[in-house]
Structures are given as structure tokens and as C-alpha cells.
């Protein structure tokens, strides 16, 4: 079994779906979450507030400095994610296919490193 991060990527400033469209997305994501939990692949998942709510903490010249985020200056920002445990990449890609349809955004699939034994 491998754990995968399925992250939802959005472009900042892109048009936000209309409210009824948004409700559809919420419903679809809810249904998918239930399905993932039922099939026993669920580890964790969550949606994030927009990137302008982010704060970055880092070490600079030996001091810990806090500043307004986000860290990445790109327009593409993380909007949410699932962590799931599945037999292989094909299973993860099949789930990602459902996820991208449900949340109407591109999904990046990345394997976690094995836990050190």
C-alpha cells in the first residue's frame, strides 16, 4: 500500500463558480469523501481558505521571522487535499479522476515516502 497526496490546485483570481454551482461542488466532494471513507482508503482531507490567509514563518540570519504569505509567489495555489492509502498509482489516478470531476479543478497526485521502519 502507498499513501498519496491528492492536492487540489486553483488559480488565484480566477472566477469563483456561481453559488448554485458551488453547492453542486460541495455535494460532489461530500459524496466522494463518504465513498473514500467507506472503501477504507481515507487518511485525511480538508479544504483550505484562500492563499491570502496564509502566514509564512522562516529562519532568517538566525532569527525566526514571521511574514504575510503565501510562500509561493505563483498564481497557482493549493486549495485543499486528500491523503489516501491505496494499492498502487492506478488506483490513486482513478480516484483523482473522480476528484477532479467532483471539485472542478486539476488534481496533482504525489506519493508519500515510506515511513522509516
Amino acid at each position: 500500500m502507498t499513501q498519496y497526496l491528492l492536492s487540489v490546485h486553483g488559480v488565484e483570481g480566477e472566477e469563483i463558480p456561481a453559488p448554485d454551482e458551488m453547492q453542486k461542488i460541495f455535494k460532489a466532494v461530500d459524496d466522494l469523501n463518504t465513498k473514500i471513507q467507506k472503501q477504507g482508503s481515507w487518511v485525511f482531507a480538508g479544504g483550505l481558505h484562500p492563499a491570502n490567509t496564509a502566514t509564512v514563518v522562516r529562519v532568517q540570519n538566525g532569527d525566526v521571522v514571521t511574514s504575510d504569505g503565501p510562500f509561493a509567489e505563483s498564481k497557482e495555489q493549493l486549495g485543499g487535499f486528500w491523503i489516501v492509502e491505496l494499492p498502487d498509482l492506478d488506483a490513486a489516478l482513478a480516484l483523482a479522476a473522480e476528484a477532479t470531476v467532483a471539485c472542478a479543478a486539476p488534481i496533482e497526485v504525489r506519493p508519500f515516502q515510506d515511513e522509516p521502519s
Partner: protein
Amino acid sequence: MTGAVNGSDIERVFRAESGRAVASLVRFFGDIDIAEEAVQEAFAIAIQRWPETGLPPSPAGWIITTARNRGLDRVRRESSRNDRQQQAFLVYATEAHTEVGPVEDERLRLIFTCCHPALGPEAQVALTLRLIAGLQTPEIARALLVTEPTMGQRLVRAKSKIRAANIPYRVPDDHELPDRLRSVLAVVYLIFNEGHVATSGHALIREDLCGEAIRLTRVLVELMPDEGEAQGLLALLLLTEARRPARVSADGSLVRLGEQDRSLWNSALIEEGHAIVRALLRRGIPGPYQIQAAIAAVHADAATAEATDWSQIVQLYDQLLMYTPTPIVALNRAIAVAELDGPEPALAIIEQLDLGNFHLYHAARADLLERLGRVDEATDSYDRSIDLTTNMVEQDHLRRRRADLHLH
């Protein structure tokens, strides 16, 4: 048989069997590197032993058994450092499989791994040549015209993605097979095309790659005899390869289809290709490779360029456009239309295509303009085409055609 066994005999066995051996060991060990190294080691032992003992009754079985034992030794050595999972695997492995008999062909699983859509096209091609065709990294680097370190890195990266992301070794389920098979066939087609007209360099054709692509397609057909598109691809490659002896003149320059000496075409390959196309037509489940094979078959049927049945070719391109509505197919169709209805309607079609960066688009345009007597425009189009061509032989050909323009 205990006759003299020499290095080239063993190399032949390696070429023919290493793909199968690596595939079956990848399945066994679940790891490409262990499988590859074990097979290399087994062949190294064969090189020492076989000249004395002669070829074993089943060289492939001998290689797989020897490689498996070497691989197990290695896993055992490395796992003595406390990897419980591997210890458990060893118990399973040594108990469950003591002798390797006529194993199920594992190459098919591995082909689908190598051509997995999660890998980039370049990695797919490199992995397929390496793991299925049994080419060594320097050979692949030479064939694809990149440096050896670059190719080595590409392979390492691809293999580590397979391992880290846990890309499975399996034949896709029926519902995903058409999609996945398409990417496998596309990889083989890419390998052939790179051989047919090398992207760059001084030789037009890289026979080694064409040969490998045909060999791979034969493996695919053998493994998936019911897949019409795999058969279609094989027929297409055979019928294209059949024209090879006529495609380049004695001085190394390119000869166009219409001007080729058709007596040089390889009749055995044409016969084989035709037989496949006929069987596919009877079967009646067409697909894009089958249609392209049918087009190649119509060309092969014509004893002279003038005898070509262009109306059938245009019809086949119409059909192909329904499957793959790409501007390249539309361009090829337009070239056939020019033969059937003249250059004017063909030029009208071409003008609508968005292929400004494709050298053959400008070459085709130049040819049509030339036939219409529009020499200045034809010259411009040849210039554009020459600028965009990276193969020297193609470039020379286009230069000659441009120079000939002014002789008329």
C-alpha cells in the same frame, strides 16, 4: 547441442530473451533494478560458461533461473540488515517457486508499466527500448541522439518514479485497455518514426530503430492477438519498411514516393503486410492504425506511381480523419487530393491548416505552388521548410527542389 558457442550466439540469445527474463523477474522481485542487474549477471555467467558447456536446452529458462537465484542472493545479502518485509518475502519466494518452468509471459505487464501515462513520452520510449527490447543505455542514447549521461539519468528518474509512485505491473482492465493500448502503440510508432526519418543527423533512416519497433510490435501482436490495432500497426510498419531500399538513392539522397524504383521494394514484407490488412478488413473493426496500414497497402498495390488508386486513398483519409481529426492527417489527405483533383483544391485545404511550424507543411505547400506555376511563392515555402528541417538529408532534398524551381 554442444557445438561451438561464441559471443554473437550469446548476444543473439540476449537480444531475444532479455526482455522476457527482465519482465518475469520484475514480477518476481517487484523491482526493476534488481531484475535488470540479475539478468545482466546471468548473461555474464553465460558468457563464461556456455562456450564450454554448449547452449543449455532452454537458454531462456536457464537465464531466468540463474538470474532469479542471483537476485535472491542479493536480496538476502542486503536484507540481512534487518528489513523484516524482505525477510518475509524471501521465505515466500524460496518456498513458493523452486523451479522456473515455461513461465507466463510477463512482458505484457511490463510494457504497460513502461508506457504508463504517468511517465513522460521520452521516458516511455527509453524504458521500452531498455526493458522490453533489451537495448543497453549507450545504444539507446545513440539511437535517440542524446548523450549517455542524459539517457542514464532519464532512465534512473523514470525507474524511481515507478518505484516511488508505485506504478503497478499489470495489464489494464478491459475498460481501460483501449486507452492504455493506444499509448503503448504510440510509443512503438514513435520509435519507428524516429528510425524512419531521424529527427536530426546525417542519415535519413536509422534502421536499428525501425527493426526494434517492428520486433516490439510483433511481440505485442503475439501477446494480444485479438487487438486489431496492434495488428494494424504491424502491417503499417511492415509496408512502410518495405519501401526503405527505394527511399534513399545510391548517393544517400532522399527519393520521394512517386519517384521511387518500386522494384526495390521488399516484396516479402509487402506480402506479409497485405495479408494482415486483408485479415483485418474481413474482421471489420477498423481503427486509425488499420486505416493507415490500408493506405500503405494501396500504395504498395500500385506497380507504378501513376497506377495509384488515389480515390481510394482519399476515402481512407476521410475515414482516418474521423478517428484522428488532426491537421497532420488533413495535410496528408490534401496531398492525396492534389493527385486526384489537382493542386488547386488541395492548396485551398492546406491554406486552412494551422501547421506553420511543421516543415512538411511548407514542403507540401511549396510543391503545390510549384505545380501551379507560382514560382516565387513556392521559393518562399521551400525556404520556410528548409529552415524548419533538422534532418540534413531532408534539408538537401528540399534545397535541390528549390534550386530546380528556377530551371523550369
